[in-house]
Each structure stands twice: as structure tokens, then as C-alpha cells.
């Protein structure tokens, strides 16, 4: 096994500074993504960050790597296309809760059941920030927002439970208030062979006055520090995924090795598609024509 040469965080310094609000949780996530890539020694040319639309989805523009800033809810699908076209690349999807758990929830679920080898970092602020403060799929029940002045009537999506039952093989939750811990989770996800979800509590300091840094700091605890917790036990993970209240777990919920989608594609055994010769062999072409005769 080749030794990893770690790269400094400056390797990934983007062309412009983020335009997020001062204090936004996404700063911590951006830092953690860079730290994770650096720890794994990933060259910027081999890293593709794909996002959708939302405050957090502007992240690819703030990092020195390849990036696609795609449509609202479609980042996972675009990322799957990139991965299948060139599976030598490290493909990381970054976005928000509205993007991934709302408008894009279909792609999210199907990508997990495929266990395609991409890493999904969801900056979950439980609010729509870029559109100035409407309820999101993870806004807690009864919370008042611009679109729910009487209080949110719908209970939130549970992304960890959803990921576990949908077939994700690496399921974690981080907190942007602890970038070192988060970087470790993201690095684990990128290194993991299969679909990795890292749901991140990334507070919106402008529009979410409920789920604030202090709110999380009082509640979160690390599963790694929980005696006897076994992240290979999916039922234990599912049990933990429903813990929400005075104590909220973060860390690695679940990890397991399963065949990845790419293993099922015979074409990919000959290396990344993008490097295959374009034309079919003449003999193959002639067989195709002969079938028509």
C-alpha cells in the first residue's frame, strides 16, 4: 500500500473567499472538507466537489479542486454520472438539507441503495437560508419560520435513519462547531468504498434562531466515546438515529463493506470509461450490423 503524503490545507485554497454570513456553520464544513482531502493526500486535480443550489452549495467555488455547481436537488445525480465516467476521481457532493432531503430526496435514496462510491456532505441548518428563512425538510415541528408562522406542522426527516434503511454503507453525523472531528468523519467517508453520508449540523446564524451553536453544544455527544457502541451493527445505529432531545449523538453511526455499484459494471473493469478508446472494435461493429441482416 502506497504511503499517503498528507497535503496542507492551503493546497485547496479557493480563488475567492466565501460569501456566507459571518459565523455561518458552513465555514467549519469547508475547512473540514479541505482538511479531510489533505489528510488523504488527494491532489486537487483528482477531487471533484459537486453541489446543488443553496448557501452551502456555493462551496465548490471556495475550494481549489474541480467543481460542479449544479441544479437544486440534482447534485447527487450529476455526481453519479461523473463517478461512472471516471471512477478514478474522488467525488464529493456538498449541499444543504433542502437540496438533499427535500427536492433531491429521490436521488439521495437511490444513490444510497446503489452504494455508489461517492461521499455526500449535507450542511444541515434546518432552514432555507438562501431564500431567506422558510421551513426545510429538517426544520423541527412547531418551529416558526417565514413560511410557517403558526409553527411548522410537519415533523422533520430523519436523514440518519433514512440513510440506514436505504442502504448507505457509511453513515455519520458531524457538527461544524468541531471541524477536527468533522474532518475525521469526512476523511473516513471519502476513504470508504461505497456511499457515505455525513450529515452535518451547520447552524444558520441568520435565520435559525432555535438550532444555534449553543443549542447543539449543550446536546451533542460523540458515539466514539460511547462505551460498547459498535458501528457495524445496523440495528444499534438505527436505534441511535432516533435519539433526539437533551442528548444528540454525532460521530460514526454505521459502516460496513458491501460491493459498490461500480463493481457491477463490466465496462469499468477496463479502467475509467473516460480513458477507453472511443470507437468500438471493427469486429464488434460488424457483428452489430450482421444482427440486422
Amino acid at each position: 500500500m502506497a504511503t499517503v503524503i498528507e497535503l496542507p490545507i492551503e493546497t485547496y485554497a479557493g480563488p475567492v473567499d466565501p460569501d456566507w454570513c459571518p459565523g455561518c456553520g458552513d465555514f467549519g464544513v469547508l475547512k473540514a472538507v479541505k482538511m479531510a482531502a489533505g489528510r488523504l493526500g488527494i491532489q486537487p486535480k483528482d477531487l471533484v466537489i459537486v453541489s446543488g443550489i443553496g448557501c452551502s452549495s456555493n462551496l465548490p467555488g471556495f475550494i481549489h479542486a474541480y467543481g460542479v455547481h449544479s441544479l437544486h436537488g440534482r447534485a447527487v445525480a450529476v455526481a453519479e454520472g461523473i463517478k461512472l465516467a471516471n471512477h478514478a476521481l474522488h467525488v464529493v457532493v456538498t449541499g444543504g438539507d433542502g437540496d438533499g432531503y427535500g427536492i433531491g430526496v429521490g436521488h439521495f435514496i437511490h444513490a444510497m441503495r446503489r452504494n455508489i462510491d461517492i461521499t455526500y456532505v449535507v450542511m444541515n441548518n434546518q432552514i432555507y437560508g438562501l431564500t431567506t428563512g422558510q421551513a426545510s425538510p429538517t426544520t423541527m415541528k412547531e418551529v416558526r419560520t417565514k413560511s410557517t408562522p403558526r409553527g411548522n406542522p410537519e415533523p422533520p426527516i430523519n436523514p440518519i435513519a433514512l440513510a440506514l434503511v436505504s442502504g448507505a454503507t457509511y453513515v455519520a453525523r458531524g457538527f461544524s462547531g468541531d471541524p477536527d472531528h468533522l474532518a475525521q468523519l469526512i476523511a473516513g467517508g471519502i476513504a470508504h468504498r461505497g456511499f457515505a453520508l455525513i450529515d452535518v449540523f451547520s447552524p444558520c446564524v441568520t435565520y435559525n434562531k432555535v438550532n444555534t451553536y449553543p443549542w447543539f453544544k449543550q446536546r451533542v455527544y460523540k458515539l466514539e466515546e460511547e462505551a460498547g457502541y459498535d458501528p457495524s451493527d445496523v440495528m444499534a445505529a438505527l436505534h441511535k438515529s432516533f435519539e433526539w432531545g437533551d442528548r444528540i449523538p454525532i460521530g460514526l453511526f454505521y459502516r460496513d463493506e458491501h460491493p459498490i455499484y461500480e463493481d457491477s459494471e463490466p465496462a469499468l473493469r477496463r479502467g475509467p470509461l473516460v480513458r477507453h478508446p472511443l470507437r468500438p472494435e471493427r469486429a464488434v461493429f460488424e457483428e452489430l450490423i450482421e444482427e440486422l441482416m
Partner: protein
Amino acid sequence: MREVTVGIGGAAGDGLDKTGDTLAKTAARLGLYVYAYNSYQSVIRGGHIWLRVRIGERKLTSHGDHLNVLIALNQDSIERHAREVESGGAVLYNSDRLKLDPTLLRDHVLPVPLPVSAITKPLGKVPPVMQNTVALGALLFLIGLDFETAAGVLTDTFKHKGQAVIDQNVAILRAGYEYAKEHFVPLGYRWTFTHVRRPFITGNEAFAIGAVTAGCKFYSAYPMTPASSILHWMAAHADRCGIVVKQCEDELAVVNMAIGAGYAGVRAMCGTSGGGFALMTEAIGQAGMIEAPVVVIEVQRGGPSTGLPTKTEQGDLNQVFGASQGDYPRVIIAPGDVAECFSAVVTAFNLAEKYQLPVIIMSDLLLSEHPETIEPEDLRYDVPIERGELVTEWDESKGRYKRYAFTRSGVSPRALPGTEGAMHTAATDDHDEEGILISDVFTSPPVRRKIHEKRMRKLEAVLRELPPPVLEGPEDAEVTLIGWGSTKGVIREAVEKLAEEGIRANHLHITYLFPFHAREVAEILRRCRKTICVEANYSGQFARYLRAETGISVDAHIRKYDGEPFEPRYIVERVKAILDGRPLSLEVTEEEAREIAYHYIRTHLDEDARPGRISRLERDGFEEPIWNVEIVSRETGRKRGRVLIGIETGSTYRWEPEEAAS
């Protein structure tokens, strides 16, 4: 020209498509041309298939207007189609099961009863579907096709099932052939067999093979008729051709995956019909914005909404033109025949990569699903592959790579992810040359103006590269027929028929819908005496587009939106009516009244009922004239009642059982 049209009618599951395929391939191997169209008739009970196989010594471009031989696999097919068989023809049927009422036949039509069990008795127990093979054997004799060639086709078809199955099929085919030889006189077709072997291929197969030949490595789709057969072909050939074929959760994923793959540097394509395309539209604009190459095939079927899933129409033009918000560069190609389906994909991939934009290919059920013989050279191996300007490495010390560099041509050399030094973000928010967003803090009207102009400018070069349409036929024609897409062949044939009747017509066919050769087309149209736009939709979407682009309104329209494709005679008759100044009648014809009655029988009555005599009543208690369709018993011929159908509205006013009617 010598030609024959064979109609095969039966229920789904009768295996008639295999029979049609064997017939078509036999004719094709003999060097004849074939054009087939499979129509799912809704007028006949039980779900019915009506396959027409037209065979001739010259290239055929439609399924034509004729019916020379009917192979009826069930009673419905006899009732519905026996009367259409032209003099000199024949009706083949299994006389063990079916009855042929001789009064249905025109003069000099040969009834060919085939006692299938007696014919196959020496061969032991044979499955019921083998009645088709008996009929096919008899047909070969009657229309003068070579038995051994057909046996060869069967041998190849059943090769994977082993010698016993081959032997049984060939023996049954021979039994049918010999029976006909013993009992009937051939119909008098004398062919010149050139034995030039030609591919027999559908539009969708041509799209798929064209894509593979042009280097397509990624195909994504969600099942939707009539695009699904591209997916099926791709899936069946994926391993041999080294393609990744992805069936996705929805069309949103389909197109976004294809765009992702195109961005990452493989030639990527996806296919769908109108409903799926509606879901794809936002992403197609995204491909225009991030300048990712992708090819999208839109196979139209009858709309609106879920519409007519197994019927043809050209009704999605407005949707394709209107796809996605804002202005963005894209190319829209509408191949006119199966050979052009192959070349359109090759062109589409080259344009998509050279100009870094989405290319949409518009087809329809007719073009995509019908098979025809094409020339072997129409399917070339060594197609041109042009990938456009690619940056393979970038020296960062010389400054940041500009993914969207403002160039004179508008094309900015592309770097694929993985390229050393050329890191950038491909952004769907508008951006500057480097890909940095200009939508938020860096908003800059002049940058926005220049990047928008850069993107759109690419179309100027695309237009220069595309061949302008040409007017086919005499310059001084009395009438010009204008078409796009799948109507190319049928219009060409209508023009020939018009010439036979002394009407000089010519034909302007548009293949490249966008960007559009507005100047060239306007120049052509200004020289034309009378222009008629032929298209398979209700509102004349293409005629309106033509007016928008050229300022020229066509003089008349021929439109069709009943789900069935145009036939040459239909166009000829409409052209003559237009030239004579006769207005189009939308009244229900007698033939249509029979079909409406069949529909009523299928939905409300029973197996025993069929339409009988039809008469016209001027008023019968309704505010319009009425078709009075007698419903009779199949078994006894006894009158069971009548169905009253409005001649103007088509309303089925009433079913009157015989007791009430008398």
C-alpha cells in the same frame, strides 16, 4: 415498380412480430427493399396488432397505401381487413379456427384457407403459434419468395435454441409452402432478386448503433415508450460495446447523470419521450450554462399529458423549443429517416463536444419503432469523431485556467476533471471566465453581458457548419410540400404520386431545426408558388415556427393527430383538395363510424357483436346528421341493434338493442 404489401393481423401474443420479421428478413436477404409498420389497432377487441410489411424492388419510404395479402390470425382481422385486400391478392387464414365470409372480398381476391392441423399432422404435436409459420410458408409460395432463404432466416433466428427447434420450424414452413403449391396458383409476382444484403433496422436501433459507433460510453434512461427500445438495445449490447447503461429512478436523474458523465469527458446520451423530456428541461438549460456536452433523444408520441403511449405524433416541437428557462445555446436535429437517425447521432456528438452544448434529437414513434431496409453504406464504421478543443494540462504558474475564456468563437477550450492544473468550477449560476459566480457578491452587468454573448455566439459557428435545406423536385412546381422529421419519406412518395396525376410538386424538408437557416429557407419559400406544411400535430407547430423565423406564412396545412402515421394517398388527396379550393371536412366518415362502433362494442358489448350495415340519417332526434350503424351477431348474422353516431361531433349518442329499435 414491383411491390407487395402483406398485412398480418392478430392479437398480442400471437407472435406475429416474429413472423413479420422472418418475412422481412427473407425479402431483404433476396435483395428486396422492405418497410414495415406495426400499428396497435384500438378498434378491434382484445388488443390487436396490425403489422404491414411492404416489399419492393426499389427503396421504400413509407408503408404505403395498399394491401395485397392478408394473413389473418384471428376472426377480427378477417372482418376488419379482408375488404381492404386489392384485386389480385389473397387472404390466408387458419380454416380450422376461422371463417371467411366471401362477401367481404373484392373481386379476384383469392381465399386461402389453411387447414393447419391437417397440414402439420405428419410433424406430430406442434404449438398453436406455428400456425403463423404454416401461413408464412404458404405466403412464400404465393408471392414468389425463395423458400431456402426463408429457411435460412429461421435457422439464424432459432440458432440459440438448438437444431431440433430449427428443424421443426423449417419443416412446418415447408409444409405450408408445399400445401400452397399443391392447392393454389401463385399470385403472379415475378421478382428480380439482386441478393444484395441490406440491414433491416428501426430508428431506435440506428440511434443506438450510431451512438456506439460515434464513441458513446454512457447511456441513461427511464423506461418510456417509444424510447425504451434504445435502452433495451443498449442494455443488451453494453458488455460487448463497453458502455455503461444506467436505468435511473426518474428522468431528472437520467439527464443529470448524462450531463455529469459528459462533463467528466465521456460521450453521454439519454433518451425519453415527451413526458420524460418535460422533467429533463431544467437540466438541459444547465448543460447549456455549464457548457457540458450531452445528447438527448426525444421520441415523440401522442400528447398531451400521458396521451397515446403507443401512437405517433409530432406534437412536442413547442416543448423542445421552449425547454428550460432563459436563453441558452443548443442544437435541435430532426432526422427524416432511419439512415439519418444513425448520422444524426454522429453529428450530435460532434456538435455537442465541439461547441460544448446539449444537442436534442427529435424523433417520433413512427421513425423510432418502424424497421426498414437501408443501404449497408448508411451504417459506416469510420464516422468522423471531433471532440473540439481540449486542454490536457495547464501550467498554474501562468495564471488560473479560464474554463469560460471569452473567445471570438465563443468556444472556450475544455479541461476535463483530472487534468493537471486546470481546476475550476463549472457553475450553473452565471459566472465569469474562471467560473466564479457573478450572481451573488460579484454581480457585474458587463461580465454577464459578455459571458451570455460568448455562449450564444457559439451558435453562429454551428449554423455555418450545418448544411442548409434544399428544395427537392422541380423548381417551377405548382405546389411545395414542407415537412420535418419522420414525414420525409411519405411526403417524397406523395410528390411522386402527384406527378403521376399531373400535379407538379416539390418538397422542402427541414432536418436542422435549431439553429435555423432562416435566410436560406426564406429565399426558397419566396420562390415557391403555393406552400403546404405537412405535420403530425393539431396546431401546426412547425408552420408557426417557420413564420417566426422567416416571416412567411404557409398557404395551407395538412395535419394529422389521430395517432396513425401519414400515408401517401392521404397527402395526395389533401393536396388536390387544397388546390381545388375544397375545404377540409372534419365530419366522421363511414369508415370512421365503423371504427367508433367497434370501440363501443369493445367497451360495452360482447364478443359476439360486430358492426354491420351503415346508413346515414339526416336527423334522428339529434342536432346533427347521424351514422346509423347496425350491430349484428357474428355467430348468426342476426341484427342485434344499432349504434347512433353523430357525423359532426362523433358522439356515440345511443346504443339501441333490437327490441327497443324495432
